[in-house]
């Protein structure tokens, strides 16, 4: 027992939280503000780690592990793969199709307002008003010393059995989807496809021009 507490927590816990939160936020800002997508992806990893720390801090050990392995290990790598594959690992050219001031400021303002509204609604501290322990303890100590993994696994195979089964369907879809999307068309079709694509592009361009002209005329009339 330490002699003092900060906001009802031990200094260690508090410090852990502060540092993790800083990492999380820094990573998040990194994602948003990096010109280069690769940097964004790396910043994302940072955030994910920070979140994992916060998971641990809240007795979600298994989830923290999964967070690091699945998120940081698989998902972000997938992102990096795609970035490399497409060759878009360059800085964004902000002059092409600029955002416009409305989007920029509204994009900032609206989420901020939303945040404040949410905080107001929660009254900052009235968050969890629900009935505690409806299903079973989350932490080991409260649940009679069972490890977090046990609790989670038990819950998955009893109360959440069907959702768990449904995730299988999700993964099948992901596989099939990935195959469908990423599959290169047969060679025979490829030339034709390119020609068609070109024709399509041309037609789309033409349509766009016609639309522009029409809009122009409409605007004038």
């Amino acid at each position, binding site marked *: 027992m330490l002699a003092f507490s900060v906001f009802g927590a031990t200094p260690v816990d508090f410090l852990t939280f502060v540092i993790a939160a800083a990492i999380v936020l820094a990573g998040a800002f990194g994602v948003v503000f990096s010109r280069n997508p690769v940097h964004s992806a790396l910043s994302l990893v940072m955030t994910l780690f920070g979140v994992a720390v916060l998971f641990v801090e809240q007795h979600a050990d298994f989830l923290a592990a999964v967070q690091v392995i699945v998120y940081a290990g698989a998902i972000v790598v997938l992102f990096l793969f795609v970035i490399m594959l497409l060759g878009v690992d360059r800085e964004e050219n902000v002059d092409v199709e600029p955002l416009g001031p409305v989007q920029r400021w509204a994009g900032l303002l609206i989420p901020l307002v939303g945040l404040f509204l949410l905080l107001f609604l929660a009254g900052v501290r009235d968050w969890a008003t629900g009935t505690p322990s409806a299903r079973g303890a989350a932490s080991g100590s409260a649940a009679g010393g069972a490890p977090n993994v046990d609790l989670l696994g038990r819950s998955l*195979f009893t109360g959440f059995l069907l959702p768990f089964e449904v995730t299988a369907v999700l993964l099948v879809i992901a596989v099939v989807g990935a195959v469908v999307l990423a599959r290169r068309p047969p060679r025979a079709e490829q030339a034709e496809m390119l020609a068609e694509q070109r024709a399509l592009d041309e037609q789309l361009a033409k349509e766009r021009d016609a639309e522009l002209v029409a809009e122009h005329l409409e605007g004038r009339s």
Partner: protein
Amino acid sequence: MIAQATSPLGPLVHPNVEYSNLGPILALVVGALVLLTVASLVPGRRGRGFYSILTILAAGVSLGWSAWLWHFIDQKGPRFAFANVVAVDGFAVFFFVVIAIAVVLTALLAEGYLRRERLDGPEFYVLILLSAAGGMLMAAANDLILVFLGLETLTISLFVLAGFHRRRAASGEAAMKYFVMSAFSSAFLLYGIALVYGATGTTNLAGIAQYLSRNLPTSTGVLMAGVVLLIVGFGFKVAAVPFHTWTPDVYQGAPTPTTAFMAGASKAAGFAAFLRVFFSTFGALRLDWRPIIWVLAILSLLVGAVLAVVQRDIKRMLAYSSIAHAGYILIGLQAGNERGISGALFYLLAYTFMIIGSFAIATVVGRKGDRAHSLDDYRGLAARRPLLALTFTVLLLAQAGAPFTSGFFAKFYVIAAAVEAHSYAIALIGMLVAVITAFFYLRVVIFMYSSPEGDEGEVAPRLPVPVSAGIALVATVAFTVVAGVLPGIFVDFARHATLIF
């Protein structure tokens, strides 16, 4: 076994697993897996017609099972299953039926389309089946988590389906837009679930309702924020203004059979969850969410109708009109009474047929490349394909709410519910918007029945109607007319599709 024995948590109690309760869903999933297996076993490009037949078979089994379930529920009453995460009630079965029908129609439609666009393969059908399974899960879900998973199952398949036409740039764009917007809105939905979970301590719908009935929440802030975010998530799914922005682009860009499925099944599933969660679970908060739905409904009606007026692309126009349709169904929800729910259900049933039928026409008229969707492409359709034009006319008039079509009774039903709930203003606005919608439906009719402009010398390109698409069209029109003349049985169906609580 050992873990069980040594666990401090006591013995593992397995939930009562009765897969028969989810037969309609399983039929689809099994169908998808069989399809994948068979397709990988049959070499080359043989047996392609087989895919659609298998799909229809699976949907047929699903329908049959639904019928059995309906009977079963009728006899034994509704029940929860799978540790209370699933509600097996008339409401769910109703949506099983609607979605299965959408699958059948889409499969019929896709057959000719995929062949024409040389996109054939089992994947389209597999994804449709899995997506539909997700939709059905949403309808039956009694847990917000399952709602979310069902929704994602439905949606992620649809991303792929939207981008299925590899050679169309628009298809890719549609997929991408749908993907980004959907992910964005899913995040809101999920956050909403989180807040509701925090506020009530459970994600189980019945549990939440119980909680609400026991504790009149002292500080409803978080709960209401959660509810609002749920509205956003569902509103996105059913394309209610202002969460509709993806709809026109995606409907226009996606391959037309996908659009049909999206407009039919996906919207139905979205409404299934919407109705169940709000009518049943948050029924106690009715006074809080009804005004929001009121605004959403009116916005959807107006924006959908007004924007449809200025469209020249049929698919886009139908997209906007489907937004207006969503507005009508929201009127039913807004009424917040029994008639409102059954009205919304009847509307969805009628709407599914109408909208899939309409997109079926667009599929056929779209021709190779899925491109001929301009209003001008419909000019003189009546002269070339009188029956096709007549079919479309019936479907459009039904959408406009012409009497003796299902569309009339659909509108009538929800408006009646609104009037019964004394929401006269919204009833009136709904009817007035029908005037605007009639305008653009009629415009299409006029184009179809006017003679082609100028180019008489040029022989109009042939417009083949695949047999399967023909069957789909006949089915949709038949339903539209039968439900318009003898709405009794369908009204019964909708009325008895009651929620479990």
